[in-house]
């Protein structure tokens, strides 16, 4: 199969598409859409941690800003669905351009701390800016019609749009990872000084990867705000940055399908534990500890290792 998929990956992709098609018959469509949004968000995050080795602890900024912008333009300007979601992605990418440019000046742990601190700046901005609605967020966002004509009021109509966006983003990430550009990213992850000595402008590669990741995170956040009809501070605050790390870690860092599986597990966990209040936080922390101590490959990584496949 062209497009850079190995046979095992092609089989997994077919299975994924099949699951997406039957999912709305099995679970509540809004839940399925939430998982798809988180899946795209985690895949975008994984592009950085898995293929460039950069741990961003501030991805909530791009996800949350994408959500706010899409909600604002859909509600106030009455833009159509695809434009609102693209606008969210564009702003996410723009914020990512500035923050990435600043953060790639430092490596490793410092990089993580800088992205976290910069994201917190966005959080404070969102608490005070007038367009975000402060503590209330942007409520009662209408589901914008696709291309201005196809109504998205029905959950199933919106589901196919979200599924399409998810698949497009997912395939784009796969394409990026398997392009010559992606090979250079992996070289940077494995040995940055060597990549520099081979003549690659490492900072340019890192920055472009960062912007792509932030753009896709913005798209995911924008899609989520269209699904739920609101954008609030929750999506831009630092626990969300931690949650995307958890999804990716649980599913498998550096695997194409891992973040999607992680997002599904995370979504299920969050939904079923929701009545138990802060036990959600406790169990998230416990999973973090468990994954880091005993399960660093994650579910898909472990599976791939057992079956000797790259998934």
């Amino acid at each position: 199969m062209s497009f850079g998929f190995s046979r095992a990956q092609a089989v997994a992709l077919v299975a994924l598409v099949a699951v997406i098609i039957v999912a709305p018959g099995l679970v509540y469509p809004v839940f399925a859409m939430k998982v798809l949004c988180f899946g795209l968000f985690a895949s975008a995050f994984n592009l950085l941690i898995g293929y460039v080795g950069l741990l961003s602890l501030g991805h909530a900024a791009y996800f949350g800003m994408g959500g706010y912008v899409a909600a604002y333009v859909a509600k106030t300007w009455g833009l159509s669905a695809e434009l609102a979601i693209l606008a969210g992605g564009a702003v996410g990418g723009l914020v990512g351009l500035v923050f990435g440019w600043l953060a790639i000046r430092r490596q490793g742990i410092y990089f993580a701390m800088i992205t976290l601190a910069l994201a917190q700046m966005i959080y404070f901005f969102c608490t005070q800016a007038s367009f975000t609605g402060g503590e209330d967020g942007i409520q009662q966002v209408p589901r914008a019609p696709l291309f201005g004509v196809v109504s998205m009021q029905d959950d199933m109509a919106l589901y196919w749009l979200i599924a399409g966006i998810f698949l497009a983003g997912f395939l784009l990430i796969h394409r990026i990872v398997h392009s010559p550009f992606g090979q250079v990213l992996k070289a940077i992850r494995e040995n940055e000084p060597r990549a520099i000595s081979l003549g690659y402008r490492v900072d340019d590669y890192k920055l472009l990867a960062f912007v792509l990741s932030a753009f896709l995170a913005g798209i995911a956040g924008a899609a989520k705000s269209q699904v739920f009809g609101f954008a609030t501070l929750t999506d831009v605050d630092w626990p969300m940055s931690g949650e995307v790390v958890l999804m990716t870690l649980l599913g498998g860092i550096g695997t194409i399908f891992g973040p999607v599986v992680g997002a599904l597990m995370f979504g299920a966990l969050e939904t079923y534990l929701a009545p138990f209040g802060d036990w959600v936080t406790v169990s998230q922390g416990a999973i973090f500890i468990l994954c880091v101590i005993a399960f660093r490959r994650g579910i898909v990584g472990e599976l791939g290792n057992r079956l000797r496949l790259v998934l």
Partner: protein
Amino acid sequence: MVTIFGKPLLLLYGQLTLGLVNGAFYALLSLGLAVIFGLLNVINFAHGALFMLGAFVAWGLLTYLGIGYWAALIVAPCVVGLFGVALERVLIKRLRGLDHLYGLLLTFGCALVIEGLMRNEFGSSGVAYDIPHALKGPLNLGFMVLPLYRAWVVIAATGMCLATWLLIEKTRLGATLRAATENAPLVQAFGVDVPRLVTLTYGAGVALAAFAGVLAAPMNSVNPNMGSNLIVVVFATVVIGGMGSILGSIVTGFGLGIIEGLTKVYYPEGSAAVVYVVMVIVLLLRPAGLFGRAA
């Protein structure tokens, strides 16, 4: 009324002391982070949670055992320090030799567990802890009236920072610690029990956070979120100062507190973000941090 740049002098003094108080917490916490990072190569994300735990232990000592503030200043850091020792022995130790990022993720998980459990137990609003009797009331300095407790926090934190600095820079134990930071295998070859040193260092760094927590307990309510609100600012402090120098951490912490206080006077809307703005400026001008060495 006396004014400076159009602002009443008393307001300025008030915010400056408050800035010093905040700076004291930044300094104590970033100091602990720097000491831990130096030897363990782990950024202790649980630092904020352990700071909060220190405050809650002080509250628990008073409520259940009737042990007051002064004793809590010593007992609570010891209790939390022991907890830290256990944490290092059971969990963090297993990560030796792995990428630094795993240490960050592990301690992040620990922070989530600790904070989640405390929120389950005490709710988000938290509990009240009274200012000890001897530190109640105002202190009239002639040119301004200073709440006595704030003065005490600044003095106690400064004292603790200097004691830590002296311990690390001027004692034999500190010399061993610095040597192990530079080259652990070599120090081990000289017969020093490095793994034990690592465990004790983590315990001591955590105890510093708990000490700060006890100091913070009477300032606002003792609540489960007090640490996570602070830790991001402390991370920014660490990025600004760089973790190479103990004195650097202290100076950066207090300096940022003062800058934050001044911002509250002249541009209140920006006070929450000013630390991050300073971080951006430092990253542009001196990417390795004010006191850091280029990697």
